[in-house]
């Protein structure tokens, strides 16, 4: 077992992790943060997307043991003080989800995109979200929601 110290959504955790555990397993099974989903387990679907030190990653391909000293943001840490972030609000307003399984991953990827560029083109949105798959919506409403969230952020 390896000792790591990582900050998740602002809270610091001291953990003993097995070298074989993924960050995804550790978040869901040890920290009980089940908002982050497991779809494919091999980097293709994006359901497990989290931010590590501000950058998005597929947590199913990251070992928890790598995470000593890092800051992780999961979907549970996106709303601040009980207030949804603009991406979450826009997803609800535009009905950008059906079963919702892909939604946490999309919220993280879209939030990261808008942090970097609050005025992305449709093409940039589609490219940056290409690592998040959705079996239900057909994507158009998701793209619309990200555009609306961008407009909210720009005020």
């Amino acid at each position, binding site marked *: 077992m390896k000792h790591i110290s990582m900050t998740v959504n602002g809270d610091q955790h001291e953990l003993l992790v097995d*070298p*074989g555990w*993924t960050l995804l397993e550790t978040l869901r099974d040890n920290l009980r943060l089940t908002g982050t989903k497991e779809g494919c387990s091999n980097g293709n679907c994006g359901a497990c997307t989290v931010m590590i030190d501000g950058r*998005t*990653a*597929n947590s199913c*391909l990251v070992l928890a043991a*790598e995470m000593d000293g890092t800051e992780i943001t999961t979907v549970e840490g996106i709303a601040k003080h009980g207030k949804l972030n603009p991406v979450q609000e826009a997803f609800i307003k535009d009905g950008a989800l059906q079963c919702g399984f892909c939604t946490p991953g999309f919220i993280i*990827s879209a939030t990261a995109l808008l942090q970097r560029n609050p005025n992305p083109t449709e093409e940039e949105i589609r490219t940056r979200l290409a*690592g998040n798959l959705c079996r239900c919506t057909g994507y158009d409403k998701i793209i619309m929601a990200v555009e609306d969230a961008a407009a909210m952020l720009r005020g």
Partner: protein
Amino acid sequence: MPDFDFAQPTTLDEALELFAGSGEIRALVGGTDIVDQLKTGRRNADLVVDVKRIPELQRLEVTGDGLHIGAARSCTDVGEFPAVRSDYRSLAESAMLIGSWQIQNRAGVGGNVCNAAPSGDTIPPLLVHDATAVVASASGRREIALSDFFAGPGQTVLQKGEILVELVLPPIPDNSASAYLRFIPRNEMDIAVAGVGSFLQLDPSNNAVLKARIALASVAPTPLRARAAEEVLEGNVLTDELIEVAAEAAVGAATPITDVRGSAEYRRELVRVLTRRTLAICRDRING
């Protein structure tokens, strides 16, 4: 996941001492190849060494002898680095093609090279820019031309105990440019059916080709240079006809297989088309 130990050294010496140990020892950068390979049993490990915290492997800078890319630098870091975007454009293009944004944020260019897939997208751009691999073990360092680095699908010439430290790309000459294109049936998130990187240096007085490099992915057991096609170009005035002859010669370097992504015949045709297109892009880039 199989049982293995984990280490996260913070100096190169510490890392090389670990790699000198016995058993199956594997480096980890982004983990976007190795973690899935371990999960599915395609590779095994007694010890996994996360090399991302070694300062030498995080180097990313331009010095007198060229561009230095530490082996642990991510595709995002490399693809967004100003000198890569301006001078080594094919490399920036390929780094931003790998997987998704999430993948690019973790996956190393060095990881792409060491994974040694025939389809590794950053490899043709590195080959056309004459990259050298600087490798080290507990008993010393050596430099390997990247064109001599690959031994077969998933196989490199790295010896037991050796790791990649950095890739060095020499400074680019005036009047030169590079380009990379791959063909996939989707827009993102797929493995190249074929990929071609090209580099051209032209004589501005008469448009003669001073230096040409063409490298192919996904059409042979390893990524490789199409040397006959380079020879067709060098010393001759660049015309559409010459580009066509070079594209035909590049097809000759390909020894593709037929698989679910495409037939051998289709891949040969892709080599012709992508060689023609990347050479034309180089010409346009040089002529501004």
